[in-house]
C-alpha cells in the first residue's frame, strides 16, 4: 500500500507526515506524534475517549482516516492549555472531581470544550457529552463542571 503525504497542524504545530492510508487519525496522533493524551476505548466509535477537535469541531479520531484530514487543524488535550496553565474547564474539572480513573477525561474535555465554544445553553450539556462514555463518575460531576464554566464562574481564571 502506497504511503501518502499528509499535512497536519496539531496543537498549532505543523507536521508533514508520510503515512499509510489505513492509519486512523488516533493512531497517527498517538504513535507518530506521541500525543498519548488521546485514548482509545473501543473500536466501534462508541466511547468517545479519542475525541479531538478537528477544525474546531469535536470528532472521534478513531473514526477518521488520517489521510482524509490532510490540511486540517487538530487540537488534542495536550493543546488545550499553554505550558503549565490550565483552561477554565480543566480547573472546573479539578474543583468538581469530574474524573476518576481519568481514561475518558481527555475525550470528555474535548467534547466539552467544543460544546462551550458553540455558545451553550446549560440544559443541553448532557447532549454535548452524550457521545462520551465515563464508567467511573456517573457523569453528574462532569455536568456540574461544564455548567459552572458555561455559567461564567471561571471567567477570570485559566490562561
Amino acid at each position, binding site marked *: *500500500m502506497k504511503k501518502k503525504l499528509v499535512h497536519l497542524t496539531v496543537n498549532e504545530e505543523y507536521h508533514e507526515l508520510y503515512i499509510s492510508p489505513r492509519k486512523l487519525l488516533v493512531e497517527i496522533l498517538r504513535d507518530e506524534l506521541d500525543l498519548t493524551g488521546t485514548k482509545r476505548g473501543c473500536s466501534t466509535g462508541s466511547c468517545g475517549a479519542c475525541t479531538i477537535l*478537528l477544525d474546531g469541531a469535536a*470528532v472521534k479520531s478513531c473514526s477518521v482516516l488520517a489521510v*482524509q484530514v490532510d490540511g486540517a487543524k487538530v487540537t488534542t488535550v495536550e493543546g488545550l492549555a499553554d505550558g503549565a496553565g490550565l483552561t477554565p474547564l480543566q480547573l472546573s474539572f479539578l474543583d468538581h472531581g469530574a474524573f476518576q480513573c481519568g481514561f475518558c477525561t481527555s475525550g470528555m474535555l474535548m467534547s466539552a470544550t467544543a460544546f462551550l465554544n458553540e455558545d451553550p445553553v446549560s440544559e443541553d450539556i448532557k447532549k454535548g457529552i*452524550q*457521545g462520551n462514555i465515563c464508567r467511573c463518575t456517573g457523569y453528574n460531576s462532569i455536568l456540574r463542571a461544564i455548567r459552572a464554566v458555561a455559567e461564567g464562574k471561571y471567567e477570570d481564571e485559566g490562561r
Partner: protein
Amino acid sequence: MIHNFNYHRATTVQESLSLLEKFKEDYKIICGGQSLLILMRQGLVAPENLVDIKSVKEMSYIDYDPKKGLKIGAATTHREIEKSPEIKKNYPVLVEMEENLASVQTRNWGTIGGNLAHGDPASDPAPILIAMTATVKLANTNGERSLLLEDFFVDIFETALEEGELLIEIQVPVPLKKSAVAYEKFNIIKNHQGIVSVAASITMAEDGIGCKDARIVLGAAAATPLRAGEAEQMLIGKKIDTKLLASVGKKASEECDPVSDIHATETYRRALVKALTIKIMKKAWEQAKTSGRVGGKHT
C-alpha cells in the same frame, strides 16, 4: 485490523465518478466513514480501492427554495443539517431527528448521503425523509437519475446504487398546506440506534376534517425502511379519530416484518410499532389540523 487498500481522493463529482468507473470491480466510497470504518476494522469490508469523496466541496450544500423545496448535497454533514436555520424553520422535524442521531462527534463528521447509502434499515433519516416524499439523485459517468427514496432501499444494507453510481443529492419537496410530519425513535439509551422508529406525515383535506394523504414509515421494522401501506390506506379519505388511529397502529404492527435480536423480540418490536404509530400519527394529525408547517415543533 484495516486491510490494505489503495486510497484515492476526489475533489469534484466528475473526478469521483471517473474513479468509480475505473475501479468498477472493487471499490468502496468513503465520505464521513462513520459506519464504513467500523466494518473495515472488523474486516467485514476490505475493498481494493477506497474512493474518498469527503473533499468534494460541490456535494456539500443545503439549498432551500420556497417553491422548489430543499436540496441537500450528499456530502453534507448531519451537523450542518442540524444547525441550518433554513431547515430549522421549514423542516424542524429534520432537526429533531438529527439531534437524536448518534453523537455530536459522529454528526460532525458523518454525512447524510453516507448514512442513506449504507442501507441500514435502522437509519435515522430514512423513515422521515420517505415520509416527506424525498427523492435522491444518483449519478454516474453517463448521467443522472432520480429515484424516490423509498425505492432506493432494496434489502438489508443493499441500495439501488449500481456499480459506478454515486448518491449526490437528496431532495425534499415543499411542505403542503395543512400537512405535518412527526417522528419518534424508540431506544433505551438516547441517541443509540432505534429499536424501532416511526415517521408519519399527514395531509388534511381542504375542509380540515378528512385525511387527504398519509404516510407511515417504519425504521428497523423490516429489512428496509418500510411504508405501512395498508395502514396508510385506512386513513385516506377518513375522518381521523383516536379509535381509527388505534386500528391504524394495529395494522402497521401487522404489516411490518421485524426480526428478533438481542435488543428486542419480534413481538416486542411489533408492540412498539403499534404504540409509536398511534402516538406519532396523533401528533402529526394535531399539527396538520392547525398548521401548514411540516414538522414536530411549532414556531
